[in-house]
């Protein structure tokens, strides 16, 4: 999904705020941030970290400098294995005009050597918000990999897939009743974008506000109804 095509599609869908969460890298966030700004959309820096337990952990950042510093740490924690473009495609880093700046050779498909606890500590250290991705997914979710949500680290917000029936899910998982949820499209293609969003009442489009909305502070909320 090129930045311009993505932003055009989001405008069609009346989506006002988005993040991209590429696997283990935020190298393409500057291009998307720039195009989003021009399109009048709110954008947050994000990444999907794959921990050593093969849990997918989303991290969102407000401060691009903090995000970039985090991204460098994350990169250092990836196994030094070369990407195989025949299987995984070319990992291109682009600018806002879709020119290819470089090709990332390290395999971003692999796991970080960080375990889930370390990954969360790192995200927090760089000012980010950590959200376990698609907890209802059969693979790469914190629940699929660890059997159930561990008591620590404590997550206030859990990611859910585009199509999950949340009330039904909560009946099966009463232990998650006090959690906040964030529905995401996990879109890899433009056609994935129609489903999988949520509505938030916030004062501004910042990651900090997502956390406050999760806590229902001063009338803020996250609505995951489909």
């Amino acid at each position, binding site marked *: 999904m090129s930045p311009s095509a993505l932003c055009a599609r989001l405008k069609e869908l009346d989506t006002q705020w988005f993040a991209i969460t590429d696997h283990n890298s935020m190298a393409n966030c500057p291009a998307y941030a720039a195009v989003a700004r021009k399109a009048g959309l709110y954008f947050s820096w994000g990444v999907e970290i794959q921990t050593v*337990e*093969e849990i997918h952990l989303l991290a969102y950042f407000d401060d691009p400098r903090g995000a970039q510093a985090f991204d460098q740490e994350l990169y250092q924690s990836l196994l030094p294995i070369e990407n195989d473009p025949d299987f995984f495609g070319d990992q291109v880093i682009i600018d806002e005009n879709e020119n290819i700046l470089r090709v990332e050779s390290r395999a971003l498909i692999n796991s970080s050597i960080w*375990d*889930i606890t370390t990954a969360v500590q790192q995200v927090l250290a760089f000012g980010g918000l950590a959200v376990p991705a698609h907890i209802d997914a059969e*693979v790469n979710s914190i*629940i*699929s*990999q*660890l*059997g*159930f949500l*561990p008591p620590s680290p404590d997550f206030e917000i859990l990611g859910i897939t585009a199509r999950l029936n949340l009330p039904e899910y909560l009946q099966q998982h009463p232990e998650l009743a006090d959690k906040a949820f964030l529905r995401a499209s996990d879109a890899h293609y433009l056609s994935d974008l129609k489903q999988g969003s949520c509505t938030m009442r916030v004062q501004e489009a910042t990651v900090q506000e997502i956390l406050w909305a999760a806590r229902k502070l001063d009338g803020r909320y996250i609505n995951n109804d489909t």
Partner: protein
Amino acid sequence: MIKLTEYIAAIGGENHTPALDPDEILISGAYVSDMLSDVMGSAKPEQVWITIMKHLNVIAVASMTGIPAIIFAKGHAPDAAVCDKALEESICLISSKYETFELAGILYKLLGK
């Protein structure tokens, strides 16, 4: 059924829970998986669990399924918090330098299967 002691000897295992006596643990097989949701649904009592997963949740999963011992492959060693919890739950933790395939194969042979 064999004693866990015999298996530990065969794999050059290191016992991280020496307060538990592996001579008193009888095993009839193994379950091999690194995905805890899968282990929860499929592992059975009297099986050892062969894995490289070291998260603290392994102890809860072993306890729930009645697994008496976890065998960490490829020299993976659990940290102190995991060992403490294992002692509380009376689950024996063993590390071996062997890979999962070999660990399963050695047990398969020992059991005469």
